[in-house]
């Protein structure tokens, strides 16, 4: 029996799943009626009790975040959704919003009601124009249905929802950089404290939640805390989207309880590319330390992945088989971080600039073993020294790759070149397109 628990993705196979009608048909927009009949604090308590944790990477309890918003402060509150999904490998929010944008809107209405916000924003990645259009249409439909705007469902609750399109910066996925960008400034992380819950958007109390976290709320309201906590593990409750990509036969989104293992997910997804074997993988996007075939049975929940030396992150499982050169893969990621470093702090800005140059030499087989130690020491000077977590994400794959595949780096140096044929790692190679 499949271990999958489709909730958010339950109706993705319906042709019109993204439409307002389909969402209603499938039981959508029933949770808001329930939520708006509750006291806002009860909604917060329900989400707290469910143990729902942030699906954007850090895993912070969503209900607690909502509870931090000071109430009765006579200030405007803002509810902001982080849809700036841009990390290599991470690809859950984009399909979710394509196939089911209304579940997010319903979650936003509930969340805004809970924290007593009358303005909500979706900050969406600018490159995904097709998703922008779809979400925009969904918002219009929700307005038409009276689910956004004044006096929603006659409960006296007003909410305006604005879709804001980013301009193509990975750093704007960092919540304070996102807020700066939303305010019209260059996206660079802000100094904390004050935290967004106290002084966020326009210096007002603000919640910033990931798309998937917010989208999970309607189901919790509808089905109850017990239903949600029955799934998952002790400290990682509920279901989540696992995104498998790379050298798997059947890549895609797999919605399963937290704590499932890669071995199980591979069974469901048709296994590693036929004729090949697993070499390494990321548990949660390119910023999380890599795993190898020794980690097939690590429970993919917040604690399990952490105990094995990585992070659950966005549950973006990029799978690489034995044809992949680890040095090349790490270099590609590092180039991404160099390109996306916002420039605010020294270790990230200068460090990524330098890391790329060192890795390029190593991939080309130039250098000596001492360069590997230098690379590690350099990562040590970057990791945990920067303003935000971007640089940690840049150093993590390098450190972990050297931990598991040092010999492969040395092989490059011994050969004076990369010993791999990159063509063999491409997915079209086996189909004969050369």
């Amino acid at each position, binding site marked *: 029996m499949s271990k999958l628990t489709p909730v958010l993705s339950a109706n993705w196979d319906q042709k019109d799943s993204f439409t307002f009608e389909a969402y209603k048909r499938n039981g959508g927009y029933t949770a808001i009626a329930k939520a708006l009949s509750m006291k806002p604090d009860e909604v917060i308590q329900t989400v707290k009790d469910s143990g729902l944790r942030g699906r954007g990477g850090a895993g912070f309890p969503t209900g607690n975040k909502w509870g931090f918003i000071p109430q009765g402060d006579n200030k405007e509150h803002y509810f902001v959704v982080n849809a700036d999904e841009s990390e290599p490998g991470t690809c859950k929010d984009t399909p979710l919003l394509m196939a089911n944008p209304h579940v997010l809107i319903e979650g936003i209405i509930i969340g805004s009601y809970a924290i007593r916000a009358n303005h909500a924003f979706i900050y969406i990645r600018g490159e995904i124009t097709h998703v922008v259009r779809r979400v925009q249409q969904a918002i219009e439909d929700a307005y038409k249905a009276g689910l956004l705007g004044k006096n929603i469902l006659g409960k006296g609750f007003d909410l305006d929802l604005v879709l804001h399109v980013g301009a193509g910066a990975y750093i704007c996925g960092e919540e304070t950089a996102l807020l700066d960008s939303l305010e019209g400034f260059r996206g660079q992380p802000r100094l904390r404290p004050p935290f967004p819950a106290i002084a966020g958007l326009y210096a007002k109390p603000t919640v910033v939640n990931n798309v998937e976290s917010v989208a999970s709320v309607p189901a919790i309201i509808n089905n109850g805390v017990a239903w949600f906590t029955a799934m998952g593990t002790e400290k990682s409750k509920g279901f989540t989207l696992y995104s498998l990509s790379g050298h798997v036969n059947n890549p895609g989104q797999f919605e399963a309880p937290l704590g499932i293992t890669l071995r199980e997910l591979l069974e469901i997804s048709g296994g590693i590319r036929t004729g090949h074997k697993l070499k390494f993988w990321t548990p949660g996007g390119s910023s999380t330390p890599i795993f190898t075939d020794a980690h097939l049975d690590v429970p993919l929940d917040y604690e399990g992945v952490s105990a094995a030396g990585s992070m659950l992150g966005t549950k973006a499982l990029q799978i690489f088989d034995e044809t992949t050169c680890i040095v090349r893969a790490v270099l590609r990621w590092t180039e991404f971080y160099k390109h996306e470093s916002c420039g605010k702090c020294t270790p990230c*800005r200068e460090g990524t600039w330098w890391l790329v140059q060192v890795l390029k030499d190593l991939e080309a087989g130039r250098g000596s073993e001492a360069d590997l130690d230098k690379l590690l020491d350099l990562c040590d000077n970057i990791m945990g020294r920067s303003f935000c977590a971007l640089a940690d994400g840049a150093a993590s794959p390098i450190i972990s790759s050297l931990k598991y595949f040092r010999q492969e780096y040395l092989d490059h140096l011994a050969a004076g070149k990369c010993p791999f044929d990159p063509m063999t790692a491409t997915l079209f190679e086996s189909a004969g397109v050369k």
Partner: protein
Amino acid sequence: MSIQELGADQQVQVEMITCVIDGFEITVPKGTLVIRAAEKLGIQIPRFCDHPLLAPAGACRQCLVDIEINGRAFPKPQASCTIPVENGMVVKTQLTSPVADKAQKGIMELLLINHPLDCPVCDKGGECPLQNQAMSNGRAESRFEGVKRTFEKPVAISSQVLLDRERCVLCARCTRFSEQIAGDPFITLNERGALQQVGIYEEEPFDSYYSGNTVQICPVGALTGTSYRFRARPFDLVSTNSACEHCASGCAMRTDVRRGKTLRRLAGEDAEVNEEWNCDKGRWAFKYEVAKNRIKNPMIRDSSGQLQEVSWPEALAEAANGLKNSRSGVLVGGRVTIEDAYGYSKFARVALNTNNIDFRARLHSQEELEFLATAKTNATYKDLDNADHVVLIGFEPEDESPIVFLRIYKQVHKRSIKVTSIAPYASRGSEKLKANLIKSASGSEVSAISALSGLTSKSVVLVGERISETEGGLSSIVKLASDTGAKLGWIPRRAGEKGAIAAGALPNLLPGNRLISNSSARVDIAAAWSVDSVPSEIGLSTEEMINSDLQALLIGGIDPMDISPEAKIKLAKKFIVSLEIRQSDITDIASVVLPVAPVVEKSGSFMDWQGKVRKFEAAVDQTLNRSDVRILSMLADEIGKPINLPTVNSARVEFESIGSWDGEVSTMKLVVGAGNKAINNDEAIISSWRNLLDKGSLQDGEENLAGTARKSKVVISQSRAKSLNVSDGDLVRVSNNYGAVTLACQISDIDESSIWLPRNSLNSQLIRNLGVVSNSVVKVAKA
């Protein structure tokens, strides 16, 4: 545990925090940042982005230290410039934590990978925080073998500031200064990653009056002053603390001299005055000292009317001859030091036996004379820090006293305090202060002043010298201050005016604010000067002396075009002894010219607008030029009535020993204001003030500075523009019987009856061009 910090009117309880840094316990006020607490112990944590007067950024990461609180350690090193101390905090800096030490060395290595390391040709080399801290907290050798990023260099971000982007460590001090302190966010960081760079918006140049501060606080050689670039190495310079001679703000300065030549001036530090800032005029306008027309030797006019260089004895004899036994007076000028003003004051009374002395080389009135002799103007910067409301009357702080502007802006930025300005229109400075504008035509301010309400004893009323151009203006201000209890500050433009009042360089005043009309005050001074008596008759004012039939005048540094268009012609008929630095309109007509030293070549002191004495020593020593007071003393000897002030120091000691008047004080006779002027449709009431950067003679010779002066424009109202059928930028002609000025117009929310022009800027030198500067009807037409 607590200490008490003295506020203006109240004592503020400050909670104290005790923490341990590198094993040493220290107690500091709550809110103190770790990096600052460490400084108090003498522990220097390296830093770049941190600056005590800017909000923390945490960007450079150079100041990483290990911190634990009540036994719980942070998992990674923290930026000590962003974290306030807490009770139970234990901090380990690079001195005691190997992790912090390695973190700092790592950051330094990273900062240097893209730095050109061109120290041998960089202006900053030798005084560079990056260079110094790379030595103290960096690795001996870099492990970077790759390719550095490069940029085209330099980029002129204004005519006076150049940017070498590849040297920049992106600490954002300059951009934060411009935004947080100056309110001129014309530079910003753009691009990202290692390509991030300081940039300007092409359509909005970096024309901040305070741009020089960004050069000074740049911790590397990325921002350099155009005029100083490649001129000197820091280790060849001799630095002297000095004071600024440009305005009454009173900035502490540092003057850097190499082989007798001033090469640069920097803002000095004084928390009670300019904090660490100054304006671009104070920083860069010093080339007048080395101008070609400097007067080096005494001169007398020969029979053919030509000035001829002569010996000092010959010149002094000629001057004494012309002055003694004639009805004479003294025009001091507004730029004198206290010591020199005291010399002039004593010289007039003792050597010339007259009270004909006035420092006011500008428009002035009898009402002002009364005001200056009697009004209590004792507001301070500290009062601005604590003010609930600041009222500006006839005073544009950004143009006329730029550090006063910074202090008001600081509180507007920090506490959103209320600012009210009585002016014809909202200047850029007044917009930056978010001032509530009470639009008033020049000459009609009295009704606006009388209508002010809501002032408290925490309010500060700042008055500019220009209000003397409005009849009844100062009287209504005195009444306002006494009715409301608000603190009053009178802020002249020139650095010497406040000191000249104290020294008694006025026709109705003796040193130490003693009224000439008061007989015991006269006795006081006569005793101090060991003379039988001082003259008891009130003397003539500047204008009266010029218009009078006085035969001889002793004139310090003045420009007759600051007073009236006919002043020079009238003065030319008199026997003039001129004490001057450079050739001027006065030396042109003088019979005797005696060279005196500019500020950098002499010692002395200015009195700032608060009344605080700003003492300075000579930066360029061993010049042959002397301060005015020494020459006056020699001249008095020659006349045979010695004033016995052979040195600056002797003048200072004598002046200080006299002290301030503590006897009976008189109050001002209040003057009633005039009504509004009637004007026709094609007429307007002219209003003006001097822009900070303009044709002022002390800015001569500094083209880079002049490059950022604001463009001369005539400001007109929307409805006037409509009736003239002009739009923004079209030429408008302003004229009267005397002459005309034609300038591009700026349509703005100005009082309907008024137009505004800069008083002494390019193509708009109003006394020269129109004979009037304010409070007068002019014709306005499309050009």
